[in-house]
């Protein structure tokens, strides 16, 4: 309960800050909308500002938004006048599938690779390191384009742009996983290497367990904790952070929509997005910290 209250206060402060930050940004949504239609002039701008409600005082705009939220109404897009709730529900699954699918796949491969590299070293260790380095220096649009060219353009194995949803998600998930694998593999390897030096591990070896068997049995929990520590900050971009991939693969996801919304200064859209993404990250974090407490019930000194 206490946790929920704290999280609620945090979310409210965050949304208020975002509300103000959006309006600090240069660019008038009314003017931008007129420009997209090749229109201009003071008269039209005033009319458009009235229509969008940006002519009102900040406090008034804020109260309109909050009242709407209390009624369960996310408002309408400044760019298209369409209700945001419907638009977001249609786009959210795409982004979520790409982000979470990619992270999950990346975590699985990373864990396997990490175990293999700690137990045997050699190729697995090299692969883990290669993924980690590649994930840092390669730009995601480059990896996406090369995958698209190889698997679709050259070998014609999938139809990522016009196929059924599962086929369209395949390559984007692979790209996200590609960038996630290295981090997971390295953290698992390092954790296991440290476990190897712990006294209880030596004890396990003297009981007659093989090295990789002992690693699996005694290092598993520790590795999981480390994986969760890496996963938590990444959950933040599971929705909304996959714009480049969505753009390249033509997915009608939330992330590209948000980038477009930024360009149009679509305040209601961005506010609605930040509300949803904020709720998501808090819930996900709460869930992860429960998992951590369950996996490692030792007390913390300052709690």
């Amino acid at each position: 309960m206490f946790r929920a209250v704290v999280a609620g206060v945090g979310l409210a402060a965050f949304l208020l800050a975002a509300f103000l930050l959006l309006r600090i940004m240069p660019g008038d949504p009314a003017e931008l909308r007129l420009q997209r239609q090749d229109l201009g002039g003071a008269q039209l701008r005033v009319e458009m500002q009235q229509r969008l409600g940006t002519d009102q005082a900040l406090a008034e705009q804020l109260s309109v938004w909050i009242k709407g939220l209390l009624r369960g109404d996310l408002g309408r897009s400044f760019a298209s006048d369409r209700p945001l709730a419907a638009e977001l529900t249609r786009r959210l699954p795409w982004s979520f599938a790409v982000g979470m699918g990619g992270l999950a796949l990346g975590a699985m491969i990373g864990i396997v690779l990490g175990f293999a590299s700690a137990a045997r070293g050699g190729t697995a260790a090299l692969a883990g390191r290669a993924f980690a380095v590649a994930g840092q220096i390669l730009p995601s649009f480059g990896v996406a384009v090369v995958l698209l060219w190889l698997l679709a353009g050259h070998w014609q194995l999938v139809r990522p742009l016009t196929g059924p949803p599962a086929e369209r998600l395949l390559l984007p998930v692979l790209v996200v996983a590609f960038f996630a694998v290295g981090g997971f593999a390295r953290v698992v390897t390092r954790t296991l290497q440290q476990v190897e030096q712990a006294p209880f591990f030596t004890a396990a070896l003297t009981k007659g367990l093989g090295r990789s068997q002992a690693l699996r049995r005694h290092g598993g929990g520790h590795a999981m904790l480390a994986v969760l520590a890496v996963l938590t900050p990444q959950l933040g971009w599971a929705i909304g952070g996959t714009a480049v991939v969505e753009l390249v693969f033509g997915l009608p996801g939330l992330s590209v929509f948000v980038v477009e919304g930024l360009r149009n200064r679509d305040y209601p859209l961005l506010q609605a997005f930040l509300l949803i993404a904020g709720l998501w990250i808090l819930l996900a974090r709460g869930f992860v910290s429960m998992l951590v407490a369950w996996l490692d019930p030792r007390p913390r000194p300052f709690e």
Partner: protein
Amino acid sequence: MKGLSRRRALLVVIGSLLPLVGGAAVHAQETRVTVGQTFIAESLDPTEGSAGWALTSHGVAETLFTVDRHGEIVPRLAESIEPRDDGSWVLTLRADRRFSDGTPVTAAEVAAALTRVTDLNPAARASAGRLHATALSDHELLITSERPTPVMASVLAEWPLAIARLTERGPVFTGPFAVAEFEPGIRLLLVPNPYFPDAVRRPAVDLRRIADGQALALGLKAGEFDLAFNLPSEALGLLRADPALIVKSFPVGYQYMMWLNTRGEPLADVRVRRALALAIDRDELVKAIRAGRPSRSAYADYFAFAGEASPPHDPAAAARLLDEAGWRVGPDGRRARDGAPLTLSLWAYPQRPDLVTMQPVLKAQLAALGIAVETRLTEEPTSTARAAAFDLMLWAQHTAPAGDPAFFLRLFLSPDAANNFAGIDEPRLSKVLDRLGEAGEPAARVALAKEAQAVIAETVPVVFLVTPEWHVGLSRRLAGYEPWGSDYYVIREDLTVTR
């Protein structure tokens, strides 16, 4: 063993986070072509924003008049239009046309559509203000405009004036295709409009938005599209090497140009502006963007009112003009006057990648004359240009979208225009514009347009650089498709599958 079970539980949790995706492909019975392009209509209502343009481009909506592939204004839903002495117009409709729900196109429907769209969409009022239309008979209507115009046919060819009929299930149109499924801005499934002549020859069209040009090209290569519209020129080599594909390039009505901010020094001096115009090597620009041809005037070459003389490239003359204006070359090779260096900012915007490519080329060309150029990018070109926060501004614009030369001149070069980027107030241009507001005779309009272009060449508020070419990629099934009309008419009635 407790640790093990926890680990298992965790794996199950992570596994269940994997998206459950499914959905088998539904293979339709009818002939279907898939089209990829960078834009899809955001709405089916022509009173909203630029929906009229998008729907016309998709082959769904039609206007009363249209611009054909030679740049001529020709009747489409209309048969003819005649002016009356009081400045109003009598329009006669074709008798055989129907909306895609089967109702005939009557004068009453068209009158309602015109009045509604000019009432609700400011873009529809740009040329002649509000239109008021009343039906005289089944096929004749009387049109009066808020501001008189000598060329009502051209006004009626403007994209916001797409003719729609409102029904309970949304607007319906008259074009060769009708909307079957619609996801705004994402996807549009079109079926042949059964009431448009020769409907059986047309395939269903699955229109997809692919915002990234490189992805579009690779999708075409993968066989995902039958038609990929507006491919980046960098991808053409890859596509032309593929025997299964056909790439067609075509000139468009857009022009790449450079606005000169005449409000302050150094560009207030016409000699400096003329020097800049002379310094530009257009052939090099064309080579840099890999397609198109050097601009000869404000309009694409296929328009009757396009100027013909090639603008000269003469760096020596440019240098003389700059010397005359007091900007002399210093020991460091840079021009300066009274100790102040000649430095200009040159803007472009990423939405038109060709302009960004041209930036460093122009920078180098001006550097050769001793002019220092700072290249800059803006995400909001119209704001930057209107705020006059630039010296030189690269710009892409269709200069005669409704087949009439006055459009560009009125929008950008009349002293009080919102888009008077150059900040020019040239009485001779204003006079030409006034006369264009009266002359209805095509030959007279051509002569006036050429006069305006001569004044522009002399006073240099803007320099025309390149008439670009765009590229369309086709599968063998659409081998017969001929692109024309820029992005105003992509899906047309002659879109048929080659067997």
